[in-house]
């Protein structure tokens, strides 16, 4: 049975609900591990933004490509990167997806269609355009979904990439995850327009604003853009308005915003919102929801435990993988 929600079946809707819970549970566990002081480095969590990751990525094919942002664990999970490899990388394990040479914000796996997350903001955009150029050259109907934030939207490389992609009508979906803050800088003072999507006009492709806490709306909007790209009609910019509940990085004291503002956005929880919608349509029951939450908790716990048991790299492993043979 399908609903009016973009042709999604009930099973798909419950699956999206499950994925949102999975992303949140995984990241909340990461926050706990970080708080224990046992995670090396620093991590950026996307708690509160799950509807964007799930809505944008759920409908992609296995052979489509994504470039997640540095707040990208959700994108990785939804595109199919095993939790154990993500946790392993965060723990610096040899079995991590990048063998301990990446970190939380450099993960990726081209076999799953995931370009490495970029630590240099904006720099994924030209790379994504290059990936899309290859899709066009090969005449496939693949698409590349490239994420960026409101903060990144000010970077010059994004301008170059968008112009290039538009000139060549490349199959890219530019997905702006506007969570209102670039680190400590509010979009209200860091971005010169109300809607970043408006900038699309300057590049000659459509720009669309969508409620980033409404997973079905994100799904439908991104799927429209994906279809357009598959038809060879070029890029679309989709701006998802959302909010991150936690700091820019774990441990961020967040002097730049008020607890009231955070509370206001927590009341717009994208997971609770979908739950309410699905229950109202009798697609989800409290019992099924409990089962999903329990299963996900077990899955996350197993992944982190396995990752903890995984081996660390040898110190001299630092010397390999500089050049390809």
């Amino acid at each position: 049975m399908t609903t009016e929600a973009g042709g999604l079946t009930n099973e798909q809707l419950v699956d999206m609900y499950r994925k949102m819970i999975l992303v949140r549970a995984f990241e909340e566990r990461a926050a706990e591990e970080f708080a224990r002081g046992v995670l090396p480095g620093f991590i950026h969590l996307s708690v509160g933004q799950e509807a964007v990751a799930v809505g944008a990525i759920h409908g992609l094919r296995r052979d489509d490509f994504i470039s997640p942002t540095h707040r990208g664990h959700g994108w990785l999970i939804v595109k199919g990167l095993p939790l154990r490899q993500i946790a392993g990388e965060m723990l610096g394990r040899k079995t991590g997806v990048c063998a301990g040479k990446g970190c939380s914000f450099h993960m990726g796996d081209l076999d799953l269609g995931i370009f490495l997350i970029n630590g240099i903001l904006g720099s994924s955009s030209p790379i994504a355009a290059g990936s899309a150029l290859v899709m066009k050259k090969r005449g496939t109907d693949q698409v590349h979904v490239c994420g960026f934030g409101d903060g990144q939207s000010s970077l010059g490389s994004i301008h170059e990439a968008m112009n290039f992609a538009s000139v060549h009508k490349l199959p890219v979906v530019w997905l702006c995850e506007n969570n209102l803050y670039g680190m400590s800088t509010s979009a209200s003072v860091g971005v010169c327009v109300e809607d970043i999507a408006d900038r699309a006009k300057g590049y000659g492709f459509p720009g669309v604003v969508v409620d980033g806490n409404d997973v079905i709306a994100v799904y439908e909007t991104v799927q429209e853009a994906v279809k357009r790209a598959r038809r060879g009609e070029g890029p679309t910019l989709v701006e998802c308005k959302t909010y991150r509940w936690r700091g820019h990085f774990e441990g961020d004291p967040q002097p730049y915003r008020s607890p009231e503002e955070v509370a206001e956005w927590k009341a717009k929880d994208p997971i609770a919102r979908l739950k309410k919608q699905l229950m109202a349509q009798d697609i989800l029951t409290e019992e099924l929801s409990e089962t999903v939450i329990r299963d996900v908790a077990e899955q996350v716990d197993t992944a982190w435990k396995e990752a903890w048991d995984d081996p660390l790299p040898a110190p001299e492993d630092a010397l390999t993988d500089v050049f390809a043979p």
Partner: protein
Amino acid sequence: MKELTFTEAIGRALQEEMRRDESVYLLGEDLRFFGAGMGSVRGLWEEFGDDRVMDSPISEAAILGTSVGAAAMGMRPVAEISFCDLFTVCFDQLYNQAAKLRYMSGGKQSVPLTVLTSAGGPIGGAAQHSQSLEALCVHCPGLKVVFPSMPHDAYGLLKSSIRDNNPVVFFGHKLLYMVPDIKGPVPDEEFLIPLGKADVKREGKDVTVIAYGFMVYKALAAAEKLSQEGIEVEVVDPRTLSPLDTGTLANSVKKTHKAVVVHEAPKTGGFGAELVAVLTEESFDYLDAPILRVAAPDTPIPFSPPMEQFYFPNEDRIVEGVKKVLGG
């Protein structure tokens, strides 16, 4: 065997590699009508068309960045950045992306990318169009750096660069691109020169001069002058700066016991400093004198001809340097 200019040698290498491998394509500014800023890809658009000789908007970060993405997807792009001075506006894609994707992916990804660029002067290009930025690239693990002097070497090394599974920055000196009467023999049969092999351009027993790019010609001219005074100079051209053929360089110094290193970038922190360090590590016991650097002064590059001529190292300065290490 034909005599080819440096530009013709580059063009022939590109043409052969593009015919051989469909995944090779060129992307840069002004390729179709000008054959790129230095004319190095002239004539290729006529054969391969827009799809494989792609004119880019003036967007160096997009040229390099899309090439990184395409290389990760299995293509072998040749990204043309007409002046290496422009690396500064796309350096992230070279330094943080191309050079690091393999390592950061734990050895899963590769970036078979060639960056074709030009360096050097004097061409009246002043401070922002005459630099030699090879040392910046050599200092970045994950990049290979090629800087040939002779058309023969340019041909064989460019073909190897394109076939290499890693990002290679290929420097050509501007005067070699621009001066049509600098020619050299290039065999008609196809050949490759492996990256990381130095070449002795002139044998000599008294002192080793290590130079690359246009400075090889200056070193050879200096050697000719000095031979008339009975001083036999060995001129060694590393050709590839990274990986560096330390063996060939050190062997020459072990034979001559004295060395001068030459480049046209500023002296401080230049590639010459690395050469001196390597030779000291590898052949200290054989040295009869400190190794001397002949390089440009530590200033930006001036415009006005008298200042510009003064700025760039020339054969007289190399002669002076050689005499100094010989204790003259």
